[in-house]
């Protein structure tokens, strides 16, 4: 059973690494600042919405790119959504792939799009794992010492 101090240390180190590795950017900090006693689950709620919506979009993208005749406008519309949501929660690496992805859509470059789709799926998967681990650490810390003020 880890002590509070160790958990705090772990949480800080882990969070810092996520920023350093570019998984998260300042927008995630903004989200945390919007969380308070009256909305204690705001970050988890928004991120959960992001997970749901992203998975839907990734499915749509896979389908759209699998068509005989690809509708690049439709693909671009989905990527635009994904870019928006990832930007809103600070998922920087996902957002960046989306930017490149949109360029391929504009060029009607199917190979580029397929490559981007793979990349964005990878990055999404990574950031999902990271965020789930982050939330788990927060929960552990919370359980160990009552409610934690979000920094």
């Amino acid at each position, binding site marked *: 059973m880890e002590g509070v101090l160790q958990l705090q240390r772990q949480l800080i180190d882990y969070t810092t690494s996520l920023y350093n590795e570019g998984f998260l950017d300042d927008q995630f900090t*903004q*989200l945390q600042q919007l969380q308070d006693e009256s909305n204690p689950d705001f970050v988890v709620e*928004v991120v959960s919405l992001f997970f749901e919506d992203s998975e839907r979009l990734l499915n749509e993208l896979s389908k759209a790119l699998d068509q005989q005749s690809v509708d690049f406008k439709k693909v671009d*519309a989905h990527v635009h959504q994904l870019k*928006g*949501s990832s930007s*809103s*929660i600070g998922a920087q690496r996902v957002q960046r792939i989306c930017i490149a992805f949109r360029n391929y859509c504009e060029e009607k470059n199917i190979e580029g799009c397929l490559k981007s789709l793979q990349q964005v799926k990878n990055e999404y998967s990574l950031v999902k794992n990271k965020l789930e681990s982050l939330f788990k650490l927060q929960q552990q810390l919370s359980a160990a010492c009552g409610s934690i003020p979000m920094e």
Partner: protein
Amino acid sequence: MGMAAESQFHVLAVDDNIIERKLIERLLKTSSYQVTTVDSGSKALEFLGLDEHGQSNPNQPSVSPNNHQEVEVNLIITDYCMPGMTGYDLLKKIKESTSLRNIPVVIMSSENVPSRITRCLEEGAEEFFLKPVRLSDMNKLRPHMMKTKVKDQKPEIQEEEEEEEEETPEVFQSPQHHHHHQQQQLSNNNNKRKATEEGLSPDRTRPRYSGLTVVSN
């Protein structure tokens, strides 16, 4: 009916993206505004009492700008890029409506496109926020809503006020996040706006609009 001087300001937020809707809602509530969110321009018009063609319910006479609904709307903040009716289309419909045109409108966009920004400001948008929108941006809404309240209370000097009102340009706000423009003397400013437009590039920090002078770098 609808005169609630003591209650909070009510903002109608329009965005087709569910995560962005949740974010803007939290930002607005944290800033002590009452919020209604809708996911499209047509739903926004419906809420405001207009149909898709911008026609108000013929059975409801417009008494004062915000008396159309039971709930008064003090500001509309809308995403630019939406399927069907864009934020710009919505802005136009609102400004064309005699009952709604005094409601301040703010546009949000993830893309820093100078011509887009200019177009929206020229059409009557009060502000143009770059996404992701931040808490500091929410403070910029209040002055616009305050002005509308003052207008409601003093209808006879409404015209004068519109011409005289001068907002201190908030120049060095959150970097690259904020475009603020004064609305007077639109026709005089047209040439200057174009020049400003040419001078703008996406990575230019904090473009400055004073309404009358051209800033060129």
